[in-house]
Structure formats: structure tokens, C-alpha cells
């Protein structure tokens, strides 16, 4: 695919960048001012590679007349204008499955970390406080807590399988109940009811127009003063200012957050809270998974160039 002009929107991964450079005609979007770049190279770009935070929006798509495919280095493609792509006949691929385990591992790891205050204990010891003050604080057991999952897709199911090993009853909400597929999980027709009946609420659905702020103030209050919110989806799934207020007031018991509305900015009020664990969008951030994601992006581009079926098409 040496003649394939690929526009990489951001240095998402060193291996991917190296391979694109070696096998395609690579353009790096961040190396020159946007307008200057587009004037010089817009006509040569046939493929765009972005990630969770950098996508092909309507304006960029309009500026690339030769664009044929958007291959996102992510599973979530809320930053890609899918309607515009459909209109222009542009293909879109993502990276499902290869990151499912990592995201599910992190979701459960965050839930334990919040309930058992693991980062807080680590900070306490490093600050010399165990020695000077002792440590008599009690936390609460994770096993057996009711886990509510918003979206029982690949990631949601992987979370469910893990928490079952901790004897956590599994509840879920999504557009349709699937009782025959999940006879052991309890379906709730609304997110508020799901939250009311759960101790840990995990966001595992795609971000689109109907799921923006799906975790509203009402949902967080239903989850309650002992409830814990785990967001490994997208920042905009949660009404972030409401969440910060609910945590500060004690109306929400705790949160484990991998994503934020305005990354890399984290609301300052969340820093230092004992009942909050914050990580910088590392849901798929392992070298094993990023390599697999990169290979999937390359595989999709190659299939496209060879006119073969795309590996993981969205559009």
C-alpha cells in the first residue's frame, strides 16, 4: 500500500506510526499548521487514522476530497462524523475485541481500587503516615456488591464475567432485554432503576446522541451515598459538573474514572478525594493491546487497498 496517502492525526502509537511510514505514504497532521498542510496535501490523503480523542469530523472530511477510509485506533468512534462518511461513501473501521479484556480488567480493578482505597493506601505509606499515625480506617468489601452495567456489549459482558467470580449479582440496562442470553443477570428498563438497584455502576456503552450524559444527576443520586460510579466509556457519558458536586456533597459514594469530558483536564475538585481513583485514559493502554490495535488498523487499510472485505468495519 505504498501509494496510499495516510493522514495520521496524532502520534497515537510509535509502532503504528513506524509501520505506516514504512508501508504507506504517511502525513503527520501535527507537523505543520492545519491550513498550510491541507493546501499542500489534501488531495493526496486517501486514509485518515485517528483515535478516541482525534477523529475525522465534518470539517476535516470536507477538506479531504480523496478520502476513502477512516481507520480509527480506538473502539469508540464518537469523534468520527459517521453520517458524513456514509454520505460520501467513506468506509470507517475501529478496533473492537482486541481491547475488550484490557478495558474490563481496568473497570474491575478500578472498582476494587475505589472501594478498598488502594491508591490512597499507597500515598499514605509513601507519605510516612503509617509509621507516624497508624492506619485504622476501614473500607467496604467488594465481593458481593451489586454491579450494574450500562451496555452489555463486548466490554460489558467481559466485566460481568469477571465480577461473577466475586459473587457480585449482575444487573444491566441496554435498549433491549436479552433474558434468554443472560438468564442470570437482572435487566432494568431505565438507567435510574439500574442505579437504584446497584452498588457499583459501570459505563460500558458506546457514546452517541442518545447516551450523552446518560449518567445524569438523577442517576447518580439513585446510585447514592454508598454507590460507586466506574467510567471506562467516554467522559461525556457522565454529567461531569454534576458528578463533581455529588461526590463533594456525599450524594454519590465514590468514582473510578478513566475518561473525562475535556481530556487531559481533570476537574480540580476531584483531586485528593479519598473515594475517587483517577487514571489518564489508559483503558487500552498496554503494550500488548496497542500493538494488536495497530495491527488491526494496518490490516483494515491493507484490506481496503486490496479491495478485500474490511476486518472491522463500522461503516
Amino acid at each position: 500500500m505504498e501509494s496510499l496517502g495516510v493522514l495520521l492525526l496524532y502520534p497515537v502509537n510509535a509502532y503504528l506510526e513506524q509501520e505506516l511510514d514504512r508501508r504507506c505514504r504517511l502525513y503527520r497532521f501535527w507537523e505543520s499548521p492545519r491550513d498550510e498542510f491541507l493546501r499542500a496535501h489534501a488531495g493526496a490523503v486517501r486514509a485518515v487514522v485517528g483515535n478516541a480523542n482525534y477523529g475525522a469530523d465534518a470539517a476535516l472530511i470536507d477538506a479531504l476530497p480523496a478520502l476513502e477510509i477512516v481507520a480509527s485506533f480506538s473502539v469508540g468512534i464518537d469523534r468520527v462524523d459517521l453520517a458524513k462518511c456514509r454520505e460520501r461513501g467513506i468506509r470507517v473501521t475501529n478496533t473492537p475485541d482486541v481491547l475488550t479484556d484490557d478495558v474490563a480488567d481496568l473497570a474491575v480493578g478500578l472498582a476494587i481500587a475505589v472501594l478498598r482505597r488502594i491508591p490512597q493506601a499507597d500515598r499514605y505509606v509513601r507519605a510516612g503516615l503509617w509509621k507516624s499515625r497508624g492506619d485504622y480506617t476501614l473500607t467496604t468489601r467488594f465481593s458481593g456488591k451489586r454491579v450494574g452495567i450500562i451496555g452489555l456489549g463486548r466490554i460489558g459482558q467481559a466485566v460481568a464475567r469477571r465480577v461473577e467470580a466475586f459473587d457480585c449479582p449482575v444487573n444491566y440496562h441496554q435498549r433491549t432485554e436479552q433474558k434468554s442470553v443472560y438468564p442470570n443477570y437482572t435487566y432494568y428498563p431505565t438507567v435510574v432503576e439500574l442505579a437504584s438497584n446497584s452498588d457499583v455502576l459501570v459505563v460500558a456503552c458506546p457514546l452517541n446522541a442518545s447516551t450523552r450524559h446518560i449518567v445524569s444527576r438523577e442517576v447518580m443520586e439513585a446510585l447514592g451515598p454508598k454507590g460507586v460510579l466506574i467510567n471506562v466509556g467516554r467522559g461525556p457519558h457522565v454529567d461531569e459538573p454534576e458528578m463533581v458536586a455529588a461526590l463533594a456533597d456525599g450524594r454519590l459514594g465514590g468514582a473510578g474514572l478513566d475518561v473525562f469530558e475535556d481530556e487531559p483536564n481533570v476537574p480540580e475538585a476531584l483531586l485528593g478525594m479519598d473515594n475517587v481513583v483517577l487514571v489518564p485514559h489508559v483503558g487500552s493502554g498496554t503494550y500488548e493491546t496497542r500493538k494488536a490495535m495497530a495491527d488491526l488498523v494496518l490490516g483494515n487499510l491493507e484490506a481496503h487497498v486490496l479491495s478485500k472485505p474490511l476486518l472491522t468495519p463500522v461503516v
Partner: protein
Amino acid sequence: MTPSAAGADAKAKPLVLVSQPSDSGLTPVMEGQFRFVLAADADAATAAEARVLFVPGLRPVTADLIDRLPALELVAAISVGLDHVDLDACRRRGITVTNAGATFSVDIADYAVGLVVAVLRRVAAADAHLQRGRWAMDGDYPLATKVSGKRVGIVGLGSIGSLVARRLAAFGCPVAYHSRTRKPAPCPYTFFPTVRALAADSDVLVLACALTEETRRVVDREVMEALGAGGVLVNVGRGGLVDEPELVRCLREGVIGGAGLDVFENEPDVPAELLDMDNVVLSSHKAVATAESIRGALDAVSGNLEAFFAGRPLLSPVSL
């Protein structure tokens, strides 16, 4: 009520000596049923009368203390570990010892899993990074390593180890173990006859066994070299299971890749060098520190005390 009747009421409650002040307190049931006296405050008559010693913490229970209690028949510990109790002295005197049984096991297992994920995925380090405002400054966080699929080796497949096994198996980790004896079929996990052999075949080594003379410093340099540069050690057992100075050297030299440590050889002292390492997660002996566990352990003590004084079989006696 006349003073003699009040005195008779007080004497009606069986006497229980307490080895140290308790951080966990007593349940209302316990306070209602027994008369608790701190061993250090006991007069000669009380010491001579005491048939039961309640051990509500980890301060040593020495042969010296045991020998000052001629009527002692039962030592009821709130903990599951008994390395702080002179078991030889108990054995010699025919004293029965009870521990917390399996009441702590779930929370210890959950914590071990939490530490595994926290070390491999750098959760605590990443949180610290964000707390210092570095995400905006430094950009993307360095990559960590996947938990699913890592080979997990558990040292001690007792009640804690088997719960750890079940949990990590659900993360897609193949699980192997070392125990004093191979578990009978159908045990789904691979047995290794030595800790070194287990370590050689593991990416993550979880210590969930008791500290005894046989297991003291069972994790030595040889075991850590077998675990290897990508390997991670998680200890929710006792600090004494690990050669701690050697552990620090192995982490510094990259002989092993990381560690999650809830226990240390000389708590609350933690080797200073560990405080600067970001491939370790440190914890203040908190694996049991949930309200549910403490309540469960107190109920176990309470149940053992009740059974003892009623002449019924004890709930969680330990074989000495």
C-alpha cells in the same frame, strides 16, 4: 439491686483476658456475655482464674504471658495469621487456639486481585500522576501490561488462595499453585512441587500462605530470579515470607518487574527505597480492613468463646 447480687451478676459472666488494647472493639453481644479484662491490668487472682485469652491484634503473645496464666485453656485470636502467638508454648500446655477461620478470606483475596491489577496496569502510579497535574503537562501516560492472560502462581491454595484463583481465572489468567500437598481432583489449577518451580512458570506470584518456620523467607533471591524481569510479586500474607532486603535489591536491579505489598517484615517500617519506586504498590496491612471482615472476625471470636464456655465444639480451632 444489692451489692452482693450485683457482684454475683458480674461473676456470672465468664472471664476473658485480653492480650492488648483492641482497635476493633467488641460487639454488643460480646460485651453482654463476657467480662473482659486487659491482661496487663489483671491481678494475681484474675490471672490464676483465666481460662481464655482473647488476642485482638498482632502484638506478640509470648510463652512468658502464657505461662503466667495457669488455668489457660483457649487462645482466641481475631486474626487468621498466628505467627505472633507462641504456638509451641500452647502446644506444650495443651492449650487450644482458634483464629478468624475463613472470615477474612474474601477481603484478602479481593485485595490481592486489586493489587495485581494496580501493579500491572499502574493504577496507583497513574492516579498519582494525575494528582500531581501531570497529564496535561506530560501527555499520554506510558503503556502498562495486560492482566488477562498473565500466568498466575499462588503460594498457598487455602481459603484465601483458592478465592484468588477463582477471581483471576475469571480475568483469563491461567492459574497454578504451590501448596504443602497437592490438592485432590478435581482441582483445575496446575500443581508445582516447589515455590521456585512455580515462580519459573509464572508472571505474577501471589503469596497467600501462613508464616511458619518452613515458609519464613520462602521468597528469596533464587525465587525472584525465577520469577524474572517481567514478573510481579504480590504479598498479602506476611512480610516474613519474603527476604525483604533482597526484594528491594531485586526491584532496584530489575531482577523482578514490580510488586504489590500489603505486609512487611517490620511493620510499620517500609524500606525507604520502595517509597520512590513507581512499579510497586504499597499498603498498610489493610487487606482485611473492611467493616465486613472485622465484624465477621469478631463474630467468629464471639462464637468460639460461646462454644468454649458451653462445652460445645469450637468454630475455628487451628491444629498445632
